[in-house]
């Protein structure tokens, strides 16, 4: 399948039509995508990673959608490389097969914006692409670079006050371990229920959240989603026993979690993740516009959130700031 190389050279994203790149080894998928999106967008197609990267070098795109299972380069690899070439483009992974370790890798390295299951719903896909384009265009390429950790290695605690970290988990062994690893460098709070967590969020200026996927029987997805919506500068790290791809995908899509770590985590990995999370939080505080890139999907769960929680989150005082959508 040849790429429809429209003779559009690298141009200003804000003026031209948004451009999408689809990568899949299955022709029929590319066909259906092309027909679905050609009215509104410029559509580029590639049947493998190499072709995709070549197209990216020659064309600026807003959104890249790639299949995971392809011969040669798999999707996460393609997206990882794509990030280097076009950091501004939003990256979406199409996955029909839950290859969990690859997904985990992509979350923790590649900053996947969204995951899409095969088979998908066209309406949902179109909405998602729309949001992605919007998010892509909120920031310039330079602004996006600010987010990249490699550009800001040790910028950490220049703003004087270290942000506090909230640990939300009732696995006391893990909590003690975290306290041991991080207690020296950071201010730690701990809650064993979502309600208690919200109390702490109320009282303290918390920048980073380390959560389990289930607290006292409740899923944290809703909490994370709401937080991201109303207080997007809080950066969330998930630290969990459950190596479940579905959960990870849900949390990315609904909570735009920053990292997904499996217990027991190696100390170096944990510390590094926390440090990057803090840096991200600092970037958000300095440049609130950056949070525009990390909007969450309006998942049904968010709407069905208990009104109490919604209100509480909306009204969180403390120094979280108020960035309502």
């Amino acid at each position: 399948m040849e790429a429809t190389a429209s003779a559009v050279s690298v141009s200003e994203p804000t003026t031209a039509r948004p451009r999408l790149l689809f990568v899949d080894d299955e022709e029929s998928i590319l066909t259906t995508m092309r027909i679905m999106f050609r009215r509104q967008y410029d559509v580029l197609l590639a049947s493998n990673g190499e072709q995709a990267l070549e197209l990216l070098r020659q064309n600026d795109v807003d959104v890249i959608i790639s299949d995971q299972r392809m011969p040669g380069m798999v999707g996460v690899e393609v997206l990882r490389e794509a990030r280097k070439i076009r950091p501004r483009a939003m990256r979406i992974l199409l996955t029909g097969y839950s290859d969990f370790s690859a997904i985990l890798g992509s979350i923790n390295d590649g900053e996947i914006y969204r995951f899409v299951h095969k088979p998908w719903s066209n309406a949902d896909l179109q909405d998602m692409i729309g949001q992605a384009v919007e998010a892509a265009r909120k920031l310039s390429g330079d602004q996006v670079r600010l987010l990249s950790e490699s550009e800001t290695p040790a910028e950490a605690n220049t703003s004087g006050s270290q942000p506090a970290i909230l640990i939300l988990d009732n696995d006391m062994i893990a909590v003690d371990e975290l306290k041991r690893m991080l207690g020296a460098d950071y201010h730690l709070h701990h809650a064993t229920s979502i309600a208690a967590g919200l109390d702490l969020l109320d009282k303290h200026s918390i920048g980073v959240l380390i959560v389990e996927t289930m607290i006292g029987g409740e899923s944290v997805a809703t909490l994370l989603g709401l937080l991201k919506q109303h207080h997007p500068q809080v950066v969330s790290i998930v630290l969990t026993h459950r190596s479940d791809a579905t959960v990870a995908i849900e949390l990315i899509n609904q909570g735009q979690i920053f990292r997904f770590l499996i217990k027991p985590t190696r100390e170096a990995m944990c510390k590094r993740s926390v440090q990057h999370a803090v840096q991200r939080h600092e970037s958000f505080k300095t440049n609130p516009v950056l949070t525009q890139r990390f909007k969450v999907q309006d998942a049904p769960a968010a709407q069905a959130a208990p009104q109490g929680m919604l209100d509480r989150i909306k009204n969180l005082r403390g120094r979280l700031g108020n960035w309502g959508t």
Partner: protein
Amino acid sequence: MIQRIAFALVAGLAVGALIYLMTLSQTFDYQVHNKTLESLRQLKQLDSRLNEETLRARLLIDPDSTALIDMLPVMRKAVDELNQGENALAGLGDKPLNDAYTAYKAAVETKLQQVERFETDNLSLAESIDTIRRAGEEVLAALPPTETAVRQQITLLIKEVLEYGLLPAPENAEKLANLGTEMSKLAPTLPIEVQLQAVQLASRPNAVLNQRQANEKLLGEIIKSPTEKNLGLVEAAYDAVHNARLRQAETYRQILIAYAVVLLLGLAYLGWRLRKSFIDLDKANRQLARSNETLEVKVQERTQDLTKAYAALKSSQAQVVQSEKMASLGQMVAGVAHEINTPLGFVRSNVDMVGGMFQDIKRLLERYAHTVGLIRAPNADDAQIAQAFDQLTVTEAEVDTVVLDEAGILLTDSVRGLNQINDLVSNLKDFSRLDRSRMDWFDINDGLDGTLTICRNQLKDRVEVLKSYGQVPQIQCAPSQVNQIFLNLINNAAQAIGSNGGQIRLTTRATGGEVQIVFEDTGCGMTPEVMAKIYEPFFTTKEIGKGTGLGLSIVYQIIEEHHGRIDVQSEPGKGTRFTVTLPVQQQAEAA
């Protein structure tokens, strides 16, 4: 080894020391000693005899006797013998002894020489006396018988001389001297014919006297000769030496005894150790005998244990095979699920989109219908028609007619996608028949095709599959298992080919009562070392976590259970060929 040599050396030294000490303590040969003593005693006797004979010779009893002279060589010989041969005194190495001997020998020599002279003198004395006698007798004969006084004198002279010869007492000497003087006085009175003789006769006694005196002197020296004393010294010296040697020998004997005691103690110790080790050996032997008895029992127990363990192992092997099948099945199912999701994805999308397009087309057609209807209608209003045409134009602009072509494409794709799904599902059904050893008739070409469909995702762009199916009869086998063989070998081939791309050729043929399926690939091949191990359970050339290493061992088992065989040829860098041969019919014992 060195220990042994050292030990031998020490033993040799010990024995040598023993022998040395023994010889030292026995350098005393009693025979020799006695002989020496005998010689000494003999010499003493000889000396006495010499003295006796000398005295006897002095008495002139038997002047012709050679007894004295005969003794001389005997004595010399005896003295020499003392220092000759084994008994040699000089051999004892004792200076005082040697000096004593030398002195003795010299003294003996002197004495013997004196004795010789004495003998000679004695003979001449006897001669002289005899001469006097004859002379006297002659004179007597010549003398007239009248001269009785003279006759008496001569007879007296003769008698005195003879007596003096026997017994040289000093009064005799005087008498003889007087007689001589007298005779000389008488001589001139005698007839002329006897005067000379008478004068001679008169002078003779003095000569005899002188001779005798000299003889006596010599005799005195002989008697006084220190030979006895010297012999005594020799004896004493010899005794001293002898005693010293006795003492030495005694000392050595004591040392020997001590040494022997030490050796004996050492030997006793060794003996004790030996005995101890014999005891240990006995004990060990007894233990051995006992354990031997219990060994049989233990072996029996162990055999039972082993038999049980073996049975358990076999059953868990079966379980492992099953779970490996399940695992690979799981992997395959996951792969198939993905496979299904892809066509499902685009079919759903396509149908959705065609639905939307359909709406658009419906709208357009409605517009057309409406417009045509108005045209057809008898009471058509131009304005209405114009309006309808305007609306139609608008709608036409909205609905891109390319949509029709696109809808066609989407529907064609969708049909294809649905067929894919159909194939996958039916293959899945075929494949997952888990009843293990149910034999059934099976077309291997179909089986290969089915497996290929399942693997399609793996193979897709990288691998070109060439099929050379021959005319093959159906075979009696457990289809799910044989499918597993195919899946395994095709997967391996695809993995060997890797991302470089290559070919897999599948060939089937019938030979006699068997069918052969050949799986050839242009992959990385195997070295002979790897080839030797591929059927070993858990042997894999993949990275950790990427393969159980059980695939080929299960394949091997399945083929064995079907009484088939599998061959492999490979060349590193070129490719690999697996040839699976299965009988068309199984024997009656198919479970």
